[in-house]
């Protein structure tokens, strides 16, 4: 139980502190132009990194598997239809189907 408490309490504290740093340090200030440009481009950089580290990597090695194909198919769905839910469902369904083969 003590391990659970330390894990959960520690995770909660670390997450809260990390999420608070930016708002405390930069809150209420006017944005300079260069900062606005940087912020606009942060989302594509971070999201692309999240996608590839989860769909093309397994731990610390690069790996292509059923989930890679599933995510790619999900991407095609959202690109064609704009449906986020469809994207997720197709990704999970294709991944499951490929693993079942």
């Amino acid at each position, binding site marked *: 139980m003590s391990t659970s408490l330390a894990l959960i309490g520690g995770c909660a504290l670390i997450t809260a502190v990390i999420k608070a740093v*930016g708002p405390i340090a930069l809150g209420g200030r006017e944005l300079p132009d260069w900062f606005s440009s940087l912020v606009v481009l942060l989302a594509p950089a*971070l999201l692309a990194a999240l996608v590839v580290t989860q769909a093309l990597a397994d731990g610390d090695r*690069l790996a292509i598997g059923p989930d890679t194909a599933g995510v790619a198919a999900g991407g095609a769905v959202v690109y064609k239809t704009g449906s986020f839910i469809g994207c997720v469902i197709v990704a999970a369904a294709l991944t499951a189907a490929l693993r079942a083969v």
Partner: protein
Amino acid sequence: MAVTERPGAPPEAPPTFRDGVRAGVPFAIAGGLVSITFGVLADSAGLSPLATIVMSAIVYAGSAQFTAVAIVAGGGGVGAALAAAALMNSRFLAMGAALGPSLPGNALKRAAQGQTVVDASWVLASRGDGTFDRNLLFGSSAIQYVTWVSGTTIGALAGDVLGDPEKLGLDAAYPAFFLALLISEARGGRRLGVAALGAAIALVLVPVAPAGVPVLVASLAALAGLTRKARAEARAKSESA
């Protein structure tokens, strides 16, 4: 997600909290599916169903939760799990820095508002000009929080019935969810270029850096926004707004 206005169209009313909730529904459904997986996997780390649900309720940071639980389940110590969770969460430093100027109030209030940030709500709340809408942020985070905790509860209590989440392909839901956000966000050559650079940086670092670091370092791809041309575009946009 950028809010665009048509030339000559009447100005739209600012988004409400309810608009945020509505915008967050697709992400909440996807997040709910993913959190079922978390609920099932946490059992392998020795967490009781109650502890698992509490973790989702007070941490509310999916990638950090998955990472921490996976390390403990693999025999690692709590210290290692917390360090990895911190690295996984490090992208919130960049997101929080971006969000900070859009948050009013004293430091404590801003810190409290910053707790609502998750990946999808941060993207949804972005106005596309470097500022963020708080109603979209809070509303979309709230609905995602509800399904995150609900999904965790289902996974924690019904894990034996559900079986192996990987057989259901649920591990593909999270990256698919991020890819959907990326496709909606990365329209236009410059954003696509930054996305490609961010992906390349992350892939190069995966084999050599601890989990979480590749994503944080990939945020440096946004420095492409500091080129003279992009700064001129930002200035022109703010002058025409």
